[in-house]
């Protein structure tokens, strides 16, 4: 399978950058997979788990807190306000995030609460975190 350069960036660092063979993420209506030579595309990315198929066929997962994806010039980039590879996720941080979400929901801040809750859930699933 043909490979193409892919980059996942957050404001503080480049989370992932390499040549890969496919990447799947959730954009608007549903999941979308990019492969080499994808037509020019710009879309919103939901808070979701991103599935990256590396050049050697192995799979790497990452949690992304919403943002944008751009495909063009045979290159795909995902720009997000925060992201972590599955291997970087720490249980303590995620559980803390979830308790913050619960707190926000209790305080009536639904927008923030739901957002944090979604981020926490995506990470808990990825890193297989239970209570």
């Amino acid at each position: 399978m043909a490979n193409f350069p892919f980059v996942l960036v957050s404001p503080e660092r480049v989370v992932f950058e390499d040549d890969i063979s496919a990447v799947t993420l959730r954009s608007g209506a549903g999941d979308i997979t990019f492969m080499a030579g994808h037509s020019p595309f710009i879309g919103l990315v939901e808070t979701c788990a991103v599935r990256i198929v590396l050049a050697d066929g192995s799979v790497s997962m990452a949690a992304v807190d919403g943002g944008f994806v751009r495909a063009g010039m045979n290159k795909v980039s995902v720009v997000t306000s925060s992201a972590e590879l599955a291997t970087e996720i720490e249980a303590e941080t995620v559980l803390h995030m979830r308790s913050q979400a619960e707190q926000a929901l209790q305080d009536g801040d639904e927008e923030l609460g739901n957002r944090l809750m979604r981020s926490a859930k995506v990470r808990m699933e990825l890193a297989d975190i239970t209570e």
Partner: protein
Amino acid sequence: MAGGQERTLRRKIKSVQSTKKITKAMELIAASRIQKAISRMANARPYYRELSEIVRDLVKAAALPKNPYTDPENNEGTVVVISITSDRGLCGIYNSSVLRATERLAERVRSSGSTVELVGVGKKAQNYFKFQEIEVATQVNGVTETPTYVQAMYILGSILDRYEIGEISKVYVISHRFVSIGVQNLETTELLPISKGQLETDSTKSSTSFDFEFEPSRDVIVVPLFRQFTLARLFALLLEASTSEYAYRQRAMKSASENADELARKYRRLLNRARQDSITTEIMEIVGGAEALKTETDPRAEG
């Protein structure tokens, strides 16, 4: 009398030297922090670059959909001025220049008939505005040492909400821009509305042009995209201000150390003179005493 002067000078030299030790240490700390701050700026660059690329493609595709970021509906709303200062002092004119520029800008906006809302970043802004009895809408501390993106969102979040509904019509940021270790400039950045110039200069850098497909649609993407772009710009400004602060502090501490050296040299010269004076006086006293003894004993010997 003379001994007292020497003691005072010795004490002064000692105190100047211990002050110098502190300023020298602060200089070295600032120097090492500059490097860290510069690498933080470098780490943030790919994000800004990728995001501007998306903005550029969106702008180029066709006439921009109507949105508050490039053409605000209300031009007479509140004007927000964000002043980025430091939490700690001892960095030369770093803070005072920002605060002076803030006051000048606020005055100009007020005289044009608009309401000004000040946002202070850094304890130095807080202290100054409190002392001057200037009302501040929002005050954020503990950001400038190591700015994070979450902090940028915290500062700007509610401002953007109010901007999008037309309550705020302009946002300025007054901060130091980092050019190099030797050069930092105080600049007033017009964060919002996003000027056409800002978008055009970004777009001329690339010659590629595609027919992009937009998901869900350009009209829907434009607002969240410009929102994130604005946050990224503020974050970049915060990082530059933080780096500039360390550069200012390093320079201030370097000149303080040099002044301490100069002062210690001056005191040592005075001390040497005082010591020489007291030795001379002592010799004069001894010689005088010996002379007096001689004249006193002589008549008795004759008698």
